[in-house]
């Protein structure tokens, strides 16, 4: 038995129009993604980078975290497994691709970090392109964090008060400060302290899985 089909010309016409509109707009859209465009003022950014106003040190970040700075958003842009292995307390994982889509908070202070700092620096540009002004990155990355916060090596000729403040900061994050003989280490102070590489530091760094920056 074959029975005729019931037709609904009105609905069908409506569907056809929807298809035409949907198809035409698709041609216009091109890709099935909403492209996120950004704007950068090249000279302004160049000036900021040259003045080193784009990054902060691990110690500065550590103090911000310890002092519970308002609106601080620490972004870890490494992979899921790397993040699970170890991350800076309070950080959230935000892969670079997410930066295009993430919701921005105008009152926040964003700090990006990666293993070595290169990816974080690239993320910094992406954030600036999206119009965020309150953004920094950790220039030395997690290596710097380990060196300066988790396992700092402090020269023995460093003033006591300074050593105490470093130790307090380190212990707050569960790290371990070590005092090393000043004759074997140059007492050059970079900002607040110097931390030459030692076997222990190298070990800590090795624990952070090596990947492309």
């Amino acid at each position, binding site marked *: *038995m074959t*029975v*005729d*089909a*019931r*037709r*609904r010309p009105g*609905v*069908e016409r409506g*569907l056809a129009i929807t298809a035409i509109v949907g198809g035409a707009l698709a041609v216009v859209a091109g890709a099935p993604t909403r492209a996120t465009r950004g704007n950068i003022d090249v000279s302004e950014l160049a000036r900021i980078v040259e003045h080193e106003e784009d990054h902060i040190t691990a110690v500065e970040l550590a103090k911000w975290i310890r002092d519970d700075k308002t609106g601080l958003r620490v972004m870890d842009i490494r992979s899921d497994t790397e993040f699970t292995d170890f991350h800076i307390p309070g950080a959230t994982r935000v892969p670079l691709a997410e930066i295009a889509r993430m919701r921005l908070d105008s009152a926040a202070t964003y700090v990006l970090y990666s293993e070595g700092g290169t990816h974080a620096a690239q993320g910094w540009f992406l954030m600036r392109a999206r119009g965020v002004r309150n953004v920094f990155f950790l220039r030395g990355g997690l290596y710097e964090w380990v060196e300066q916060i988790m396992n700092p090596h402090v020269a023995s000729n460093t003033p006591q008060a300074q050593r105490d403040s470093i130790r307090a900061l380190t212990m707050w994050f569960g790290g371990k400060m070590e005092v090393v003989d000043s004759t074997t280490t140059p007492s050059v102070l970079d900002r607040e302290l110097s931390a030459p590489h030692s076997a222990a530091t190298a070990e800590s760094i090795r624990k952070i899985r090596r990947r492309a920056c």
Partner: protein
Amino acid sequence: MSDLATAAPGQTLGSAVAHVAAEAATVPRTRVRREPAPYSSPYLAGVGVGIVLLLAFVLMGRGLGASGAFSSVVAAAVETAAPTHAAGNAFYTQYLGNGGASPLEDWLVFEIIGVVIGGLASGLLTGRVRWTTEHGPAITSRRRLANAFVGGTVMGIGAKLARGCTSGLGLTGGATLSVGSWLFIIAAFAGAYAAAPLLRKAWR
């Protein structure tokens, strides 16, 4: 209808329930039918299928299919009847869960079970269930059944070569713009139209 006037309250309730059920089934007539209702517009039914297909993508990240379910059945049957033979044949091991078989296949078996249920439900509510054989006026139903079997065999081979059928490649591949699927669609229509004149007696 006049029978309502003379019906007992229970019967009126019963027909009212059938009325609601049929309404929910988007059929404008009002009861589980005896005479077949007209088919739905193919465009609307097609959009319905498209929405189901889209739901599959959204929920499962995959599309619909059919021929894969047949493969699973055959592979399972061969493994049960002749396990060593099955283990030695790359085609069967592909489907037997050990040789990196795609878990897609079981999903299709469950989907096909659903297809049977859905087809039956739609047929019941529109009065189109009938124990019969659809055949062209010029041939007998026996001839038709033989043709169906042969056609099915040929399609089984074609579907396995192409790794899909009109559902898996045509619909799923079509919507995802897969090159091979669109080649399949064109080739399938071409093959069918080429063979149609030879089969005219069977259908017209």
